[in-house]
C-alpha cells in the first residue's frame, strides 16, 4: 500500500532549544514519515537547518545536562530516510548562504516550484 504524500512547509526556526530538545519540527517530519510519504520545504530561517554543522554541545543548566536540538543531523536523517528536502533558494540568498554550502542530498529550489509541489502532494502542512 503506497503511503499518502504530504508536504511540510517549515519556515520558523529555533523554537525553544531547552523546551524541545529532540522534539523539534524536523523530528516531527521524520516521525510522520512512517505513516506518510513526507517531503519538506524549508524556507526563512529554517533553511539554516540544511547546513552541515558540528554536533551542538550539551548545555548544563543548574548542573543538569540539557541536550540541544541537533537540527542538522535530523535534516541528514530525513534525507537518508527518503524524505525529499527542498530548500528555498530566495531564503538562502536573503541570508547570504551559498547553495554549495548545503548538506548533501537537499534540493535548493526557486519559490515558483512550491506551487507545483503543492499539486503533487495530497496534504500540505505548515509546521
Amino acid at each position, binding site marked *: 500500500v503506497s503511503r499518502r504524500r504530504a508536504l511540510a512547509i517549515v519556515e520558523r526556526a*529555533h*523554537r*525553544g*532549544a*531547552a*523546551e*524541545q*530538545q*529532540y*522534539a523539534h519540527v524536523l*523530528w516531527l517530519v*521524520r*516521525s510522520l514519515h512512517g505513516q506518510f510519504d513526507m517531503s519538506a520545504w524549508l524556507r526563512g530561517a529554517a533553511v539554516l537547518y540544511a547546513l552541515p554543522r558540528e554536533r551542538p554541545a550539551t*548545555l548544563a*543548566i*543548574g*548542573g*543538569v*545536562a*540539557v*541536550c540541544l536540538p541537533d537540527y542538522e543531523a535530523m535534516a541528514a536523517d530525513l534525507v537518508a530516510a527518503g524524505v525529499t528536502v527542498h530548500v528555498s533558494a530566495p531564503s538562502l540568498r536573503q541570508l547570504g548562504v551559498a547553495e554549495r554550502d548545503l548538506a548533501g542530498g537537499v534540493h535548493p529550489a526557486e519559490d515558483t516550484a512550491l506551487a507545483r509541489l503543492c499539486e503533487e502532494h495530497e496534504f500540505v502542512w505548515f509546521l
Partner: protein
Amino acid sequence: MDSSPESGRTLLLGLIGGPYESDLTTTALRLADEALRQGHRVTVWTCGFATALTLATLGASKPRNLLAWDTVSTSTAAVVRAMLASAPDRLTWRICRYCMEERGTTAQMEGVRVTAAHRFLELLAAADASLVMGVK
C-alpha cells in the same frame, strides 16, 4: 565584579514570552545559571505561558523519544528544580498568579513562588539590574 554571595547583585529576569516559540527560555535559563554561578542573586518572574515551564505535571523528563527510545530528556521543571537546589538562597522562581490562573497552569511544582501580579514593580525596584524578555 566580586563574586561572593554577600556582595553579589540582584538580577530580575522577566520571562514574559511563551516557551516553544523561540530560544528566549534557553537564553533566560543560561543567564540565570551564569549569574548564580558568579554568586549573584536571581529572581525569575514568569508571565503568560512561561508559567507552564514549572508545572508539576511535567515530571522529571520529557516523553520518550520514539526515534531514540533509550535516551532521556530533562523537563524544564527538572531544570528549574536543579537550579533551585543548587542555589536555594539566591534563586527565586516566581509565577505570576494572574497569568497562572488565566492559563490554567495552577499545578505548580514545589519550590516556586506564586506571586500576585502587582508585586512585579516592587521586585523591579529591589533589583540592581533587570531584563524583561519576550512579548506576552
